[in-house]
């Protein structure tokens, strides 16, 4: 009888450089559902895990940013395809972690999958929408193109553990950046499962690194890290920590995407607002003459 | 900086450096002239060259053509061992493999040459006596080439004296990248001179460009012409110690160079890609490249070589597959 079968439980680990290590610190913490029942032990990432993640993200940057936009779009669409096949598992984790009904959890998962599709379609259109041919007053051919900023630290939303996460990660990747993500502290499990999806979706190792743990602990290290080019503070709320991190980020002139006063409704049309902060504009001049 | 040997002792010898073949006899008259000539060669568009190499890489070589290609490729292999750990035993073992690559099949051709460091050339020579297989020796402070010219020439003389039939020299990439083309040219000419054997005849000179350090295809074309003008019998891509080693676009540009050089001077120069060619598929792609770029005249071990070690076993496995109709495995060929 299947009801008698004892399930095999999953070990939730970090996703770092394309592999699934435990935290170098050996620490874990208990993750509970909204009713307080034990779900799993998650790895509690340390500053050294964050350091390793930045190295992995930097190492993957040239390959990911140098891939054709078409290729990046195909890869992100593949993420949606693979995620769709595991929708039930995601829905279960979201329902438990966020205290949603099965229907609402499934809706959040569907929206997360569709969000990947949205960003998959952006990779090869950003240059046409954000770039320009510049009619400079002189015998020069000029054009401006958007280029990725580099390694972006993402403090993922605390409440929306999957849709919120995809909504902040997708735009960073679509632009060609690589990411070091600190997941929701109390609801980290869907992020780890997303790592398993990313690992099997043609996303090169190191492009996305997922650290489960506490943004308040790891965030400052990332905000100050000299080899991080931008930081998305979505997982903090405006005020104490967010301001502290923004100040730290100023030391290396990081691009900062500020936190909202409270966590936004992630089902809203995302537009371009989360992509443009992590895009640089490069203008090129070239003479015209025989 | 002090040198035990005067670095310029030999280059200052009285004899003038011989001029290149007509119609290029005057291009080495000065540094400036040589530079102008090399930089006046048509440019190579990287994207276009890579696209062409890629298309040729899609040629589908089947059945009889594949059988011919495999045997031809085997006969073009310079079976190579260039390790600090090389011993006479290792070289003898390689020589045995060179003369009979597939002990179970007497129809299998032998390879073109065995390629070793100069100090082991004598061992290889003895082991290959009477087989018609050449001994190639790397020299000139291989692989970096960072030694005084006197040391490099002594290295070559030593290898030739040990019985090397072919010398694989490296160019001075530092001088090349610094734009001292005439220095590079003169060094090749000097090495070519000491390839001459006292008893008559001369070791064939292969000039290694180390294209992985030259980086651009424009540089590959210039270095190819430089080496051919200096009298190199072969131009060779790489030492195998620098990555990337032989690539199809690099080989394409070199084949274009030998084709154009023969058209201009009447002299044919061979091409040897080395390093990184490990599979039959890679080897066949190179043969296609020859066939459709330089032409059939280069489809022989006299004019084309593969510098390789593990390639030979893959060729043997594919050969067995063609012969028996089923896939073979690594235990059915000998370890090197």
């Amino acid at each position, binding site marked *: 009888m299947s009801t008698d079968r004892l399930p095999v439980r999953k070990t939730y680990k970090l996703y770092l450089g394309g592999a699934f290590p435990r935290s170098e610190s050996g620490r874990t913490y208990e993750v509970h559902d909204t009713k307080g029942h034990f779900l799993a032990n998650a790895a509690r990432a340390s500053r050294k895990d964050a350091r390793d993640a930045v190295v992995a993200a930097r190492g993957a940057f040239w390959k990911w940013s140098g891939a054709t*936009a*078409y290729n990046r*779009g*195909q890869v992100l*669409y593949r993420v949606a395809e693979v995620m769709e096949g595991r929708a039930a598992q995601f829905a279960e984790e979201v329902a438990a972690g966020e205290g949603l009904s099965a229907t609402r959890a499934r809706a959040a998962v569907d929206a997360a999958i*569709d969000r990947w*599709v*949205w960003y*998959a*379609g*952006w*990779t*090869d*259109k950003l*240059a*046409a*929408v954000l770039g320009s041919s510049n009619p400079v007053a002189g015998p020069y*051919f000029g054009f401006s193109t958007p280029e990725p900023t580099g390694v972006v630290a993402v403090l993922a939303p605390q409440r929306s553990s999957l849709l919120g996460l995809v909504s902040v990660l997708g735009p960073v990747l679509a632009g060609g950046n690589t990411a070091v993500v600190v997941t929701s502290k109390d609801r980290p499990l869907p992020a780890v499962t997303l790592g398993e999806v990313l690992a099997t979706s043609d996303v090169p190792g190191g492009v996305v690194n997922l650290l489960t743990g506490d943004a308040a602990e790891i965030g400052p290290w990332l905000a100050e890290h000299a080899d991080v080019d931008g930081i998305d503070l979505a997982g903090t709320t405006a005020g104490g920590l967010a301001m502290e991190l923004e100040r730290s980020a100023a030391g290396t002139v990081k691009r900062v995407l500020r936190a909202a006063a409270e966590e936004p409704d992630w089902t809203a049309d995302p537009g*371009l607002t989360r992509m443009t902060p992590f895009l640089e504009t490069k203008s090129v001049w*070239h*003479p*015209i*003459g*025989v | 900086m002090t040198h035990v040997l005067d670095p310029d002792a030999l280059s200052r010898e009285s004899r003038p450096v011989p001029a290149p073949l007509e119609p290029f006899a005057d291009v080495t008259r000065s540094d400036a002239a040589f530079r102008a000539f090399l930089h006046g060669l*048509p*440019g*190579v*568009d990287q*994207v*276009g*060259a890579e*696209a*062409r190499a890629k*298309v040729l890489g*899609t*040629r*589908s*070589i*089947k*059945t*009889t*053509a*594949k059988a*011919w*290609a495999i045997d*031809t490729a085997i006969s073009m292999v310079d079976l190579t061992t260039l390790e600090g750990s090389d011993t006479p035993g290792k070289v003898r073992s390689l020589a045995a493999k060179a003369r009979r690559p597939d002990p179970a099949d007497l129809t299998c051709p032998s390879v073109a040459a065995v390629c070793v460091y100069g100090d082991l050339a004598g061992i290889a020579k003895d082991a290959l006596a009477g087989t018609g297989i050449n001994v190639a020796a790397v020299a000139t402070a291989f692989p970096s080439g960072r030694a005084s010219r006197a040391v490099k020439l002594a290295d070559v003389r030593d290898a030739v004296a040990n019985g090397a039939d072919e010398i694989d020299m490296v160019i001075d990439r530092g001088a090349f990248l610094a734009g001292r083309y005439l220095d590079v040219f003169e060094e090749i000419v000097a090495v070519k001179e000491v390839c001459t054997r006292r008893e008559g005849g001369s070791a064939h000179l292969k000039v290694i460009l180390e294209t992985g350090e030259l980086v651009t295809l424009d540089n590959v074309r210039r270095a190819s012409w430089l080496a051919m003008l200096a009298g190199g019998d072969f131009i060779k891509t790489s030492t195998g110690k620098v990555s990337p080693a032989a690539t199809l676009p690099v080989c394409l540009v070199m084949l*274009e160079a030998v084709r154009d050089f023969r058209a201009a001077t009447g002299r044919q120069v061979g091409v040897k890609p080395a390093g990184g060619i490990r599979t039959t598929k890679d080897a066949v792609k190179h*043969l*296609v490249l020859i*066939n*459709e770029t330089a*032409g*059939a005249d280069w*489809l022989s071990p006299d004019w084309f070589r593969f510098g390789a070690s593990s390639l030979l076993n893959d060729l043997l496995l594919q050969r067995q597959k063609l012969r028996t109709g089923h896939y073979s495995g690594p235990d059915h060929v000998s370890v090197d």
Partner: protein
Amino acid sequence: MTSPFEYAPAPESRSILDLKPSYGLFVDGEFTDGTGAPMKTLNPATEEVLAEVATGSEADVDRAVRAARRAFTRAWGPMRPADRGKYLFRIARLLQERAREFAVLESLDNGKPIRESRDVDVPLAAAHFFYHAGWADKLEHAGLGPAPRPLGVAGQVIPWNFPLLMLAWKIAPALATGNTVVLKPAETTPLTALLFAEVCQQADLPPGVVNIVTGAGDTGRAVINHPDVDKVAFTGSTAVGQSIARAVAGTHKRLTLELGGKAANIVFDDAPVDQAVEGIVRGIFFNQGHVCCAGSRLLVQESVHDEVVASLQRRIGTLRVGDPLDKNTDLGAINSAEQLERIRELVDVGEAEGAHRWQPDGELPDRGFWFKPTVFTDVSPAHRIARDEVFGPVLSVLTFRTPDEAVAKANNTTYGLSAGVWSEKGSRILAITDQLRAGVVWANTFNEFDPTSPFGGYKQSGYGREGGRQGLAAYLKGAEQ
């Protein structure tokens, strides 16, 4: 030069195909019989009959347009844009999954080498669907107004040179922008369009969104003249394009035309010669020269004329002409007896007018429609082979002395679809491209295509663009009207 290295035949297997003896029209999501007299489609490499294909009558076209209208009103128009995008993503993936099948069928029906259908036509067709899938829910970002809306039913008529790719260029943007489609493939190459209809079924595309009506000129006219068609898109000859423009004059129909060309491929003396020679070959012999943007006029600087022509002839000597399904074939069959006749006629005129004809040695197959790669030298701008579109593997070589002369000669044509420039000097390339009156200019490359890059002509090569942000405009209102 004979080589000891003769490539053994390497034919792509036909067994991947399930070729039916006869095909119907695809209307309202189903295959139906046509009421016109069926036609036969041939393999141009062997003249074997591949299948019988229905001919759509005026009544059939009307049925298709009504189905498209229904689908537009009830299903496709009201659908969430993101869902339209998802259907297009599905189609893109299905094309990728069935790519080899499409490639083999395309080569059989069209005569083009499998290497090209496999590596160019089919992957690009899939890429067009992938690209436009992403636009479906992003149209307000396309710079075409805040709320662009679809036009309605698009009637599309496409040529035989890139049957599937031209279908993709037409259908993908139309669907992404919310329109529905009645498409008429070329008379001689209907099969991949019908296989595409199967893909629409596999994708569960709502019935009527895509309708395929096969047939000849009459069927095409019925599509274009149908009063309930809101948009006409045509790719083909300039003569037919002119008649279509007349036919839609005074109606509400929007029109885009992608017509003929006589592109100049300009080679300066500082060009990267080996790559330029490749580009010349690719420019004129890609797809047997059945390419509207083919680089059919080589304009080479006098100082390097002999060298370039000699290299070109040597290179053409290595082209492999023959069985389109052989993976090593570079040049396949001419698509039809009619087209072969036109090529022969123009080549005869070229010789009669005094140009010098050169062709490589080698035999052509006994059966089928074939023409050797051909180069005319000593061509003057007054010769017909320098002015008329041959649409075959025939290159006319002209010379120039200065950049101004190159530009003047390049622009001396009633066409303006494409052009090429070869030079290692960037500023010169940009100066020349500035002055060329052509919709696509390739520098140090030729015949490159990408869904992100708008394609279309100046002058009598047509109007409207396909691909890129600009290509969406042809299927949307709200911006300009």
